[in-house]
């Protein structure tokens, strides 16, 4: 069943590399002088090219190669990093992605245009006589790229590389192909015979490579082991640091083949040299170094595992129930042991499915970059809480709602620079995307420092659309809820991005389908914040098991505030209660479910909170709390909207999970029709 399709693996890896490339490029847009970012981007490109060629993605390899060649000038520092360049590089990245994912549909002319534009971009600064600002660091970079005389390097592999199938000798042979080499084995770290682990590699090598060869050629040799090794490279002739020669022009470095050590730092102030030494101390590592011990697993397998574990938990619950009724200590002990194992396994499995939300946040940087450019509103994007973990399905489904919220924030929230200037705000707008744990929930907030929501205007619009009767007293929060009404938009002009009044209702629906809620907070003139509260996982919830008639149901515990007994005198008649002075309406679940038989003598009310409102649900009996493994209902029964899903109880029968928000809505509708029929 293991998918060993090399092309598929390449696609997946390249996808991740492209994501990291995008991240580096966007960072680069903000800090154009950051050399490590250029290097990161370059490494990603290089790997995409290398493995692309290996797996037969020739188009990808060809395009990436051309792009890399041009981008190399940036890396050498001959060409400064500009916003145009970053935008173009992003376009190129998109093109590479389409070449990989849909090679047949990718348009070659797009690629040619990008390359042509890139040529123009990289050619222009060269024609300008005075070196651009970034060039200060540049020649230094040049020197670390090419050394006319050759290189001295120390090669230290991680001890376990042999077990991974790496053959150091073959790599050394390959290195020898680049030019005449002197290889010295370093035996310093070889332990005593007693402590020697025969499968570990303890040898290190010091290699002197003579001849004109670019650094990339060396990196290419070690391309597949770079993660598992330390490679210290020094251009030959650098050591005698005293003989710094001032050369006429940086171009000389490339042409000159005689040992010209720091010749490449001609018109450069001394600082960059320090920078380079610092560079050398740090071995060339990949940005994604830290993930070296992870295993790639297909998402479907995790889903399958979760299903199995869910079944196990259910079967275990049945076993425990059975063991309780038997007076057999042995069986009870085993049942308890299995209970412990099953719950441990369940927690671990759920943990595996948890993904840091940062992977999602990274996607929005591009969105904001593009939107801010298109709308002419400079925006600073700040994220925090990237390592907050959420179930992976949740993260996938959160993407669309967050896109909507962020678009709205930029399009409607952030004012244009002139307006901001008038309001005395900094010209650059600010969008914050925050994630944090709040109790057993995760709160994701999109906050902008724009104009804020105009509550009076929303109200006026709601009256205009006939959603409220003019003069009704409503709290601000209630007014803001109209934003989530289908077809509601206060935007005077409809832009390509937002203002059509579709979107916010979809956002709300999606979030509610995830059993979450949206809070709006705003301050006129100072911005607004949309907070999404979400459960940690979709797979399992804590529930309260109740009985209505002869059926059992689950109420999500997160929705419940308290449980009280229905006073006998209120068993009939008015459908509201006095809970510590507050008026709480209630719904009789027996009526909603058409339960047969007579209600129990002592009915219970479960007080739930739906948004700001509290609503009681009348049940016959409260059985107890229940770890609920959620099973979705078949789409054939999608018209049963009162239920959000089902679960399996200890005795093996199915119980339905109440969708409290829907129940309340249906209850209201029912009440309204009843009043109307009575009136009629």
């Amino acid at each position, binding site marked *: 069943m293991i998918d060993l399709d090399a092309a598929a693996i390449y696609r997946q890896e390249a996808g991740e590399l492209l994501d990291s490339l995008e991240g580096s490029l966007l960072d680069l847009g903000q800090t154009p002088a950051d050399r490590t970012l250029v290097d990161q981007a370059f490494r990603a490109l290089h790997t995409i090219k290398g493995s692309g060629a290996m797996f037969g993605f020739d188009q990808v390899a060809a395009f990436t190669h051309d792009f890399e060649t041009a981008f190399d000038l940036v890396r050498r520092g001959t060409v400064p990093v500009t916003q145009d360049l970053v935008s173009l590089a992003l376009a190129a990245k998109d093109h590479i992605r389409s070449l990989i994912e849909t090679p047949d549909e990718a348009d070659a002319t797009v690629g040619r245009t990008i390359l042509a534009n890139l040529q123009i971009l990289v050619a222009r600064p060269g024609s300008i006589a005075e070196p651009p600002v970034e060039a200060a660091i540049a020649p230094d970079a040049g020197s670390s790229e090419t050394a006319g005389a050759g290189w001295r390097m120390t090669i230290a592999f991680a001890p376990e590389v042999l077990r991974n199938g790496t053959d150091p000798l073959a790599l050394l042979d390959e290195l020898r192909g680049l030019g005449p080499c002197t290889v010295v084995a370093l035996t310093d770290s070889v332990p005593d015979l007693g402590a020697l682990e025969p499968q570990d590699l303890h040898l290190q090598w010091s290699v002197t490579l003579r001849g004109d060869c670019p650094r990339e050629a060396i990196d290419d040799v070690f391309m597949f082991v770079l993660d598992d090794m330390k490679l210290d490279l020094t251009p030959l002739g650098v050591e005698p640091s005293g003989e710094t020669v001032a050369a006429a022009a940086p171009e000389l470095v490339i042409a000159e083949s005689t040992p010209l050590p720091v010749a490449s730092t001609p018109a450069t102030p001394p600082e960059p040299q320090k920078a380079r030494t610092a560079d050398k101390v740090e071995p060339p590592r990949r940005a994604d170094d830290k993930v070296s011990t992870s295993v790639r697993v297909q998402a479907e397998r995790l889903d399958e595992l979760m*299903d199995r574990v*869910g*079944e196990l938990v*259910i*079967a275990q619950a049945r076993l425990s129930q059975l063991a309780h009724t038997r007076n057999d200590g042995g069986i009870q002990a085993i049942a308890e042991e299995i209970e412990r194992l099953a719950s441990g396994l369940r927690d671990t499995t759920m943990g595996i499915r948890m993904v840091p939300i940062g992977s999602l946040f990274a996607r929005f940087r591009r969105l904001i970059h593009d939107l801010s450019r298109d709308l002419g509103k400079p925006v600073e994007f700040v994220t925090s809480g990237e390592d907050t973990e959420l179930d992976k399905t949740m993260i996938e489904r959160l993407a669309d709602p967050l896109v909507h919220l962020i678009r709205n924030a930029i399009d409607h929230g952030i004012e244009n620079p002139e307006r901001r200037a008038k309001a005395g705000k900094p010209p650059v707008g600010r969008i914050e995307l925050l994630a944090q744990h709040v109790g057993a929930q995760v709160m994701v907030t999109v906050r902008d420092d724009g104009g804020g929501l105009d509550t009076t205007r929303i109200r006026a619009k709601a009256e205009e659309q006939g959603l409220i009767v003019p003069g009704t007293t409503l709290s601000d929060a209630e007014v803001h809820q109209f934003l989530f009404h289908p077809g509601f938009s206060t935007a005077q002009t409809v832009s390509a991005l937002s203002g059509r009044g579709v979107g916010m209702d979809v956002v709300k629906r999606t979030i509610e389908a995830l059993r979450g809620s949206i809070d709006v907070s705003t301050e006129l003139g100072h911005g607004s914040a949309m907070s999404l509260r979400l459960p940690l996982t979709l797979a399992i919830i804590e529930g309260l098991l109740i009985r209505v008639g002869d*059926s059992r149901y689950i109420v999500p515990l997160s929705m419940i505030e308290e449980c009280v007994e229905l006073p006998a005198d209120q068993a009939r008649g008015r459908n509201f209660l006095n809970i510590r002075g507050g008026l709480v309406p209630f719904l009789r679940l027996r009526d*909603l*479910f*058409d339960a047969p038989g007579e209600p129990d003598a002592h009915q219970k009310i479960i007080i739930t909170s739906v948004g700001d409102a509290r609503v009681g649900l009348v049940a016959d009996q409260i059985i107890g709390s229940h770890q609920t493994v959620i*099973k979705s*209902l*078949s*789409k*054939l*029964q999608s*018209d*049963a*909207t*009162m*239920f959000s899903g*089902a*679960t*399996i109880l200890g*005795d*093996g*029968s*199915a*119980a*339905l999970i109440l969708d409290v928000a829907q129940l309340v809505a249906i209850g209201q509708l029912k009440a309204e029709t009843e009043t109307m029929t009575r009136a009629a």
Partner: protein
Amino acid sequence: MTDVQANDGSMQVLMIGLGDEIFAVEASIVREIIDPVPVTRVAGAKPFLPAVMNVRGNVIPLADLRIRFGMPCTADGGDTRIVVIELTINDDPVVVGIIADKVYEVTELSKSSAQPTPRVGLRWKPEYIRFIAKWNDEFIIVPDMERILN
């Protein structure tokens, strides 16, 4: 789906009894046949999909075709079984349990004996019927499960 004659001629079917009628369900969509299990009523669902049940750790709907066909519902008897079938509806796989008053046998129906569905003389809507085939001198209805359930 409707062009049944085009295939090589015979199909494996499971014979199930509903009321006094015998239907044939293609064996290829039948996943298993189980004894009746406790079911949970679903308020607000379609009348012919009145409940859900636990089948091997999955909650699946129970379909009562007798309601769909307007046949009288009898109480579960000793022969009552649930036939779990798997279909594709709007490109999504759907698993449903069907109540059968009795399950007879798996047999082969000759498609060449298939008769066009008459527009009259039937208790149910013609669109619910894929075709009618002859088996042991009896006319057997092969229902169109996708349409019936959707």
